[in-house]
């Protein structure tokens, strides 16, 4: 399989109502991939298991995976852009990082 073909198969749509695609093998920034017939140049490195926008998304848009909501966009993203915690927030509860000074301070 040449690299262009590999990149074309790198993004998986899990449910027809989803607005994100899942990366199934790591792809470098600058790679041109085919999204449902349209050529899209990736701006970011996208790692295995990460998400990209299937369409341009605006702040306030709900994000759908498996056909179910997984949070709300807090910043806009263009088609093919990385969708992750820098632009997507939970509707339920915050995630946490590795910063020990701010984590685990129980009431």
């Amino acid at each position, binding site marked *: 399989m040449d690299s262009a073909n590999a990149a074309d198969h790198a993004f998986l749509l899990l449910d027809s109502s989803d607005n994100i695609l899942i990366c199934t093998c790591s792809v470098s920034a600058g790679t041109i991939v085919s999204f449902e017939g349209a050529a899209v140049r990736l701006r970011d490195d996208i790692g*295995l298991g990460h998400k990209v926008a299937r369409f341009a998304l605006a702040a306030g848009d709900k994000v759908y995976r498996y056909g179910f909501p997984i*949070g709300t966009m807090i910043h806009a993203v263009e088609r093919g852009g990385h*969708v992750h915690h820098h632009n997507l927030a939970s509707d339920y509860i915050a995630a946490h*990082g590795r910063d020990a000074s701010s984590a685990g301070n129980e009431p």
Partner: protein
Amino acid sequence: MTGKAQFVMDDEGHIQGYLRPDGRKGIRNVTLVIYLVECAHHVARAIVTKCDDPSVHLIGFPGCYPNSYAFQMLSRLATHPNVGGAVLLSLGCEGFDRAKLMEDIIASGRPAEKLVIQELGGTRATIEAGIAAVARVKARVETAPRAVMAVSELVVGTICGGSDGTSGITANPAVGRCFDQLIDAGATCIFEETGELIGCEQIMAERAITPQLGQEIEAAVAKAAAYYTILGYGSFAPGNADGGLSTQEEKSLGAYSKSGRSPISGLIKPGDIPPSSGLYLMDVVPDGEVRFGFPNISDNAEIVEMIASGCHLILFTTGRGSVVGSAISPVIKICANPETYDRMAEDMDVNAGRILRQQASLDAVGDEIFDWTRKVASGTQSASEAMGHQEFILTYKSFDAVGPACLPRANRV
């Protein structure tokens, strides 16, 4: 397509189990050494180390203050079908009710001995006495009768650890396929961590066998969300984000797919034994005000709770690459991420990442997990078991008993 997880089943699904006096059957014949406070941990560990026997496992509770949850957990674990007998290690002044634990084990028909360090004259004397006690108990454990065990007699739990963006599309739904097969065969399956099901409460409630059970499931998830909100964040580790998961509900939906498609027969709490076959959700979040910190401080805290509810073995899915096993019950590792599998193949039993490389279907991997479940139940060592993983952790918690709406099947005869 490595040959590692490929094998031909050589039986008709029958497993040679160990028959216990209460009629339950185990798939392993473990002798436990149990410390009843951290102050007895070193002595207990020294006994286990010197015994140098993979069937002698170390478990215990570190706290000095008594806790009814911890007591019930150790009582259930010491009388688990995979366990043949136990040696208890007490310092002497701790709050744990060692006499009642001895009573429970003896009442179950298992051999047990109790050693009190302060009475025996200290570390060295107790280690010597402990080695002799393990030898006596183990000699009786080895006389456990064997009995044919059907798949329908298995209790199987599932957990995900080190999840990433691949977990919910490969390993977790493959375990769901295996759960469906096990339940169709009459087995009992447990999935858990209500805090990792936040966002799935409505779709889960619709699968409950009664509307009242559905309401209990929704309430259990709401309790988890409130509990984690007070703690400041959900059940979400930095590695989850490294692997592409962005939010709690995204992680939850992926984790939820481990439960398969069977109806949900009941809601149990740690240590409750499911009253019938079928699929059960375990509510692991404590009741009442937030008192003892995080519900489960790491994956093994959840594994041990499912074992206390009778799980013979655990199906553990991982994307980032967990290596843990467990005391008492074998842990089967299903790796979701093909890149992780390539790096850590020796720690994995099943490579579900093949699904992403178009080398296997979800159904084929589900079948493979089902076959591994029977194979490990029949005595084959899982990868973590063969490498000596016997992790164990038990912390403080408090629970109220489940109400009648949680176990509709228990009310019918």
